[in-house]
Structures are given as structure tokens and as C-alpha cells.
């Protein structure tokens, strides 16, 4: 006679859960402990480099959401377009990164920050100088390997848990 369903499965399960009681938890205490995001993070807020931008508007054409607005004027003495207004409504942006990928002059970057919540809707619409890089608005390495190389290594849960192999 073979006995199989006398509670052995329950006992096995109980063993697994009690073992976990003595393992280290995997969660992170967020405001105190911070993990490094991916080097290619498509984080909040686009970063735009005015010096490199030529006003070609490829980004605006690529954006599937149509959130980039560019107004240019022609400067005759320098014989080029001058960007008068570069406006991004980050409230509509889905952070797909297609604009960064499309920019032929590497003037657009995704943001590396992840704590850029705003209190008002109006603050989501950003233009011109607001879009520049700054210490709290670091560009991420998405589509820019040279930036990615300088960013800190991403923390991986895979490497944090060492107890079980």
C-alpha cells in the first residue's frame, strides 16, 4: 500500500516557509537605502543640450505622443536655424526614448533621476533652459554609451542575494 496524501506536501511547504524566517529579507528600505538604477534608465525628464541642437525637429517628428514642440527662426548671419523654443510636456511623455534614438546630433538624453515628482501639472511642461542638464538632472546612458560608462553600476537583486544558490 502506498501512502502519499497524508500531509507530506503540507509538511514540505511548512519547511520552506520556516526556512525563510531565518533568511535575510530581500526588500530595500527605500528612503535610506537606494539602489542604483540601470545605466540606461529612461528616467524622468528629457534632457536637452541647446549647444548641440540644430533645430532639425527629427525628434518632434519621431515622438509617438507628439509632446515635443519646437519653434525655430532663421539666423541669416550665422546661416542656420536658431531654436527659439523647445518645449516638452512630460505629462504626456511615455518615456519611450524614440526621440533620443532619433536625434542625429546627440542633443537629447533621457534622465537618470527617478525622484522628479511635481506638485502641479503646469510644472510638467518644460521648455528651453529648464531642460538643460544639472547635478540633479543627470543624463542617462540610454543610446549614449559614453555616458553609460561613467554612471555607477546598476544594483542587481541577483547579486544582492547570496544565500541560495
Amino acid at each position, binding site marked *: 500500500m502506498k501512502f502519499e496524501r497524508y500531509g507530506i506536501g503540507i509538511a514540505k*511547504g511548512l519547511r520552506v516557509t520556516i526556512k525563510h524566517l531565518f533568511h535575510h529579507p530581500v526588500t530595500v528600505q527605500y528612503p535610506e537605502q537606494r539602489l542604483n538604477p540601470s545605466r540606461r534608465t529612461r528616467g524622468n525628464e528629457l534632457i536637452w543640450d541647446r549647444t548641440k541642437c540644430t533645430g532639425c525637429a527629427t525628434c518632434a517628428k519621431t515622438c*509617438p505622443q507628439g509632446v515635443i514642440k519646437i519653434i525655430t527662426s532663421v539666423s541669416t548671419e550665422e546661416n542656420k536655424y536658431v531654436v527659439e523654443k523647445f518645449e516638452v510636456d512630460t505629462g504626456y511623455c511615455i518615456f519611450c526614448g524614440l526621440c533620443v534614438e532619433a536625434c542625429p546630433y546627440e542633443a537629447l538624453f533621457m534622465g537618470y533621476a527617478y525622484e522628479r515628482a511635481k506638485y502641479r501639472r503646469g510644472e510638467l511642461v518644460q521648455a528651453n533652459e529648464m531642460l538643460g542638464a544639472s547635478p540633479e538632472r543627470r543624463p542617462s546612458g540610454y543610446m549614449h554609451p559614453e555616458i553609460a560608462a561613467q554612471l555607477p553600476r546598476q544594483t542587481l537583486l541577483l547579486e544582492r542575494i547570496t544565500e541560495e544558490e
Partner: protein
Amino acid sequence: MALRTEPFVLNVGPVHPSTHGVFRMRATLDGEVIVNIEPVFGYLHRGIEKLAEERTYSGIIPLTDRLDYLASMSNNLAYVLAVEKLAEIEVPERAEYLRVIMVELQRIASHLIGVGSFLNDCGAFFTPFLYMFREREKVVDMLDMVSGQRLTYNYMRIGGVSQDIPDEFLPALDKFLKQMPGFIDEYDQLLKENEILLARAKGVGILPKELAINISASGPVLRGSGVKWDIRKADPYSVYDRFEFDIPTGTVGDCYDRYRVRVEEMRQSLRIIKQAMEQLPPGAVRSEVPHLLRPPVGEAYGHIESPKGELGFYLVSDNSIAPYRCHIRAPSLINLTALRDMMIGWKIADAIIIFGSIDVCMGEIDR
């Protein structure tokens, strides 16, 4: 003397802990027994198919992320395959392998959620769910590493993938491949033989083989019923014909079989990833594709075996920069058509786990 009784109608959802999104089941109950059930959906309708008609071909990729948001990579792949078929674009070898790795990782992540929430529906109070989320987190970490986002990857491109993998990726993947089988064993230890789970899931919600084929179910739901049908084998896309793997199938088609099929598929996915990693060739990851692609007039259907079943994109081109029509064959929706046949006669508690065992994603059903 028999007492006069009358059935009553219970609205399960749209806001209910176990409807995995905003799904509603109008259940007519006789006591606890379900006499009739009517699925009601559409609460998450965003008009993705219509939106696709006015976006450029490459701009649709982020849209597909939002279909089955637990398996964005698979959606990406299905779509780009359809476009590549439509415009006859070649894909570099390395990109094909990367696609396979990503999609199989995605399958593991999606099945972890599917199985976890199924077990959670059975009443195992979040323990399997959280254990599985822990492993999903590792997968998501890796996909984040290559694509830059944790849920809506937008990684595949027409004619390849957006970027090559970073240097840290392969060591991490290797580590994951070593760890994961142990964790799958742990899940099995936790609940596979649990008597209560067996009593709850075995023989419950049987989907007979013939019915499964007739409603054109696919994915683990179909394979749980014992049909050996997997598009990766039946109509190999990408480079799937170069890998060796098995198609796990169930025997009777009950909830337990579907659960086991998913767990076994995770093991097979690990096998595929391992082979793909070993064979990964060097080279470019993206072929030159015009920015505003104008495919020739015609139509194409690209389909893949997504974690939930056969995911297909049917595209019609009129030689403009946006498709004339984009239809999505969402596996969740079609698997859901068996709901009534599976649930009638079972109790309300069974209905919940039957629904959980189909593993649907509302983003895909309502589109």
C-alpha cells in the same frame, strides 16, 4: 417539503481582489454554485488598434508595450515580426539571438506572475506570490539593464533591437541561469504536492481537448489540455528552430495541469536561454531601416508564442508611413471564451481559481 430557493446574481468585479485588473463576471449563483456566468470587459479599452493607424511604424512599438504589460518584450517581438514580414527586412543574426533571450526571460517573468497570482487566488496568502516576485525582480533587473525600463521595455526595433547588451548582462544572465532552477524547485516544494492545493485544483475547471481546439485556445491553456501545440515548434519564427526544447503538456486540462505546464515552461525557457547564450554570435544588432518606413502595399500576419498564447499582429499597409489597419490577436481574450464552459457547476471559489489559471492580462483583452 422543498424550500423555495432562487438564484441570485453576484457581480465579481470590476473591482475585486482576484480579477487581475478590471474584469467583471456576472455570476448567477445557486447558493455557492455557479449556474451561469457572463464575462463583461472593456473597462481598460484604450483603442490601441485605432491609435496604431495614425502612428508611424516605429512609433507603434511603445504602444504594443501596453498590451500585455506583463510581457512587453513578447508584444514587441510579435509586432516587429509582422512589420519585417510586411516590408521584407532582414534581421542580423545577433539581434535574433538577443530577441530570443529577451523573450524567453520575459516568458519566465510572465509565468512567475501567472503562477504566483493563481496560487494566491487559491488562498495561499501571498507567500508563493512574493517568492515569485523576488525572482521576477531579477529578470526585470536584467531587462531594465538592456532596455532602460522595468515594465514597458520598447526594446525591439524593426530590423533588430534598439541597442546591444551591456557588458554586465551576460555574467548576470549566467548567474540567473544557475540560480533559477533551485528557486523553481523551491516553489515546487512549497506547494506542488500540497494536499489542499491538489484538492482545490486537480480536476477543477476541466477544459476538454476538443473544446480547447474548437475555441482556438492557445498557450498554456491549450497545452494544459494535452495538445502539443507551440508556435515556436509548429511555425518557428526568429531562430527558434536552432534550439532544443520540449513542449510540456498536461493530461486532463484542469487548473493543476495549467499550473504545472507553466512551471515546466519556465524550465524549458531556461534551457533555451542557455543554448542561445552559448551560440550568441558577434556582429551588428540592427539593420538599416528608413526612419519613416513605407512598406509596400500588402498585408502580413506575424505571430509568436507569447507567454499567454498565440499573439498575432495583422497589418495592412497602404504604402504610407502608418498602417492602414492593425489587428491584434490577443491570446488572453480568446482563451477567455472558454470561461463559461469551465465554470458552470463549480463553486464561486473555484471560479476564482479557474479564472486565475487562465492567466489573462486585461491590457491585452481590452486593448
